[in-house]
């Protein structure tokens, strides 16, 4: 059984940010494994531990992102493929999915797991785009996974409740961080990760997948979200402040 997990290195949203002339400036030392992808890796590890198999992580990113592959290997993945970019390309979800589809064209696998979205951009497009390019059945926003034979039983979070969906192999699932708590790599895991194989492929070798019109969206600028007007803090006797605010919600705000 072969699991592929697509992972991405993203800036930590908790790190300080700056916008200079419409460009987003972030501390490259505060890059992390996307939390949703970490859950996808964790889920593959749990399934592997119960049913056997092999886990390969795939990452598209610049040289520096190799640390994120090591992180997934330290968690327990068996090997990695690094699709190396220059770092200056402005790929969008569509072109990332095209590149991944080209990568998977000649691969054999039962399952591809992705994070349900990237923590930085929150688009959540690449997974289902990849499924469509590869003509795979898929489920998004998974919060639970089980194997029954080769079929995946996916619990996905829908709008008003959860849906249990059965997917035949091969299939693709995008994972929510509500699925599990990704393990912290052990010291032994970190040591072992250094000896695990990582195959590097230049993105230009997969550009067959990209046609002229494959980059369909672009970011033209960033701005800080307008701050809310500062409010008022009420401290003191619970009875009094509760009463005062309740009355203001009626008289001043008219929202009750």
């Amino acid at each position, binding site marked *: 059984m072969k699991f592929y997990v697509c992972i991405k290195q993203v800036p930590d949203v908790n790190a300080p940010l700056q*916008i200079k002339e419409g460009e987003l400036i972030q501390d490259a030392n505060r890059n992390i494994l996307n939390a949703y992808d970490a859950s996808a890796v964790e889920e593959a590890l749990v399934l592997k531990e119960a049913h056997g198999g092999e886990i390969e992580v795939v990452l598209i990113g610049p040289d520096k992102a190799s640390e994120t592959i090591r992180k997934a290997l330290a968690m327990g993945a068996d090997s990695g493929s690094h699709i190396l970019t220059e770092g200056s390309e402005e790929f969008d979800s569509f072109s990332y999915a095209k590149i991944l589809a080209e990568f998977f064209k000649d691969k054999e696998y039962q399952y591809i797991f992705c994070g349900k979205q990237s923590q930085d951009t929150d688009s959540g497009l690449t997974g*289902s785009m990849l499924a469509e390019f590869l003509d795979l059945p898929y489920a998004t926003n998974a919060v639970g996974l089980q194997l029954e034979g080769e079929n995946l039983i996916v619990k996905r979070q829908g709008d*008003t409740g959860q849906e249990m969906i059965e997917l035949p192999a091969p299939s693709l699932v995008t994972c929510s961080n*509500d699925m599990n708590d990704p393990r912290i790599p052990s010291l032994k895991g970190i040591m072992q990760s250094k000896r695990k194989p990582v195959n590097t492929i230049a993105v230009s070798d997969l550009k067959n997948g990209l046609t002229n019109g494959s980059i369909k969206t672009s*970011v033209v600028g960033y701005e800080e979200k307008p701050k809310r007007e500062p409010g008022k*803090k*009420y401290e003191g006797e619970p009875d009094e*402040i509760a009463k005062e605010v309740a*009355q203001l919600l009626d008289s001043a705000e008219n929202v009750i």
Partner: protein
Amino acid sequence: MSNLLTYISVNDGKIKRSSLEVLSRCNEIAEKNGKTSSAIVISDDCSTIVENLKSYGPSVIYTIEDPIFKNHLNTPLLKALTLAMSEINPDVMAFASTEGSKDILGALAANRNAAALADVSEFDWTGDAVTAKRPVMASKIISSVETKGSPVILTVRSGSYDTVEKSGESKVQSIPFTFDKNELKLTLKEIISATGDKVDLSEAETVIAAGRGVKDEEGRKLIDELAAVLNAGIGASRALTESGDYDPSLQIGQTGKVVSPQLYIAVGISGAIQHVAGMANSKVIVAINKDPDAPIFEIADYGLVGDLYKILPPFIDELKKIKG
């Protein structure tokens, strides 16, 4: 030929307000630029939805009706949308952002070779590129984005636009559709519906959100009471959906839902950016927290510092009095 096409999301036989917001925006863009704005309903029973939709005046209401659409499943929905897009040929296809539309947005864009923008908070189209704004970095930053080529498929955050009724004849046109069970690549085994007849969180005018500070049955009872007085939807932070105290469908934030009610009351919630990402556009924010330095106070209009177990009972009493 339709320039803008809005997909009408339906929940329990009712049109979701967020998709009327999107339709209203598409109507506005169409009017401004001399384009047409139409709508599509894909459901197991379209008739009442079509009738209700007429007061929003789309030029054409397209329908695809089949029993398979009783529950959300991505394979048949994708087939229907793919068919609709190839027949109708819209330049811009817009959805309200829901778990249902997020499920198929990428696949539909891949299938139609279309540009896709997820979860925009503003968008415009003059006939050329679509320009839009998207919250990124857990909604700390707004990015301006632009598309190349046509068609463009996008989803819009709920609460981004007002719903505006519009007079005018709507033509109704049904698109023939067949779906063979053998085409189903996957099977729906079971639906675990938790929210039942409670207020729909994404449409509620008032939302009460419980966080880790609500630590026991007594606290949850206070939340229920407060919600009952205000006829509010109940939401929760990740701390309490993770612990199992509240259903996962109620999570508000980056992983969960985005809400923008008139009144948001955060009870025992610290205000982590991933939570704030889902509620910062609420009109009035009230926070109850015993830690005066909790980050939630930075965005609250009314910050009540103190123990929620002491503040909620008099707060509820006073609200009851006001409500009469």
